[in-house]
């Protein structure tokens, strides 16, 4: 039997490749359609238990909490950025100034004495969310231009209770 089946002519046995190529192409198309080119996303962690957003603790902290106020115009754009009672203006310069003010208060980045400092972001109802993220970012720290590493300022961020919209 065995000797009969073997080809005497020495011609090579060809494996049919077409089904395998079909499957491979189908897999390729599946993965190509599933692929989504997405920019990497980062996050800012905030800890907000209910009822602690506007309460002051009875023990006076060594360094006062930082209050950042963001005032919007009717279209939701930033009209004024305030650090405590000081007006820092508008635009990127204002956010840079905010970072500088936070650094002035904490002294040196990563200072353990300032671990309990909290930044309260008080934004107008209509203000576009992107400005809040900018403010949170500039209070959190900055990227060192030399080392390209994150220099952390304040870790604790909270929001002031929401206010009603101006036009309500």
């Amino acid at each position, binding site marked *: 039997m065995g000797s009969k089946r073997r080809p005497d002519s020495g011609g090579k046995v060809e494996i049919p490749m077409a089904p395998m190529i079909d499957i*491979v192409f189908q897999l390729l198309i599946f993965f190509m359609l599933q692929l989504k080119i997405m920019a990497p996303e980062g996050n800012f962690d905030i800890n907000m238990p209910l009822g602690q957003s506007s309460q002051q603790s009875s023990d006076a902290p060594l360094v006062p909490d930082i209050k950042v106020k963001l005032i919007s115009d009717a279209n939701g754009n930033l009209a004024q950025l305030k650090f405590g009672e000081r007006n820092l203006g508008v635009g990127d310069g204002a956010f840079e100034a905010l970072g500088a003010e936070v650094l002035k208060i904490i002294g040196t980045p990563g200072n353990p004495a300032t671990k309990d400092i909290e930044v309260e972001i008080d934004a107008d109802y209509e203000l576009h969310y992107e400005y809040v993220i900018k403010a949170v970012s500039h209070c959190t720290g900055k990227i060192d231009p030399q080392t390209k590493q994150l220099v952390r300022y304040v870790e604790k961020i909270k929001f002031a209770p929401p206010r009603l919209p101006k036009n309500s």
Partner: protein
Amino acid sequence: MAKRRSNHTSVIEPDMTPMIDIVFQLLTFFMVVINFENTKADERVKLPKDLLAKPPEVKPAEELVLNVGFDRDFAGRKLSDEPIVFYAGDKFTINNFGPLLEQEKRLAEAKGGKGTIDETTVILRADSEVPTGKVQELIRKCQEIGYTKFSLKAISEEN
């Protein structure tokens, strides 16, 4: 020339090996690059960009991803000014989202036991144009249910 053709009757077979190699390499590339975990992110939400937004080194054990954005057309124009929470294939206004959060809490507790939501991080993927007050209202609703950990997402911007 004509003589040569008549003498050779065998079929000329193209060499398929390089093509198969390339196809396998492409297949491997797409298999490696693909990320099925990003399916919770909604493409309708245009996240704000920030330099400091770096992907987290440690993924939270439990997370609840909330996408807040606007109904937009193909050109990216807003169809309505009312922010919408895109969740599980449905659309909810922030005012109507409370019952679903309650349901999520019950499901999480049935799965992981009581106190699971203390360990759950609510990941807020909010559109850059959403009014801050609306985001705060959503945070407030989550707080009332019992969530305390929040994470605000932004697109990592290269300097």
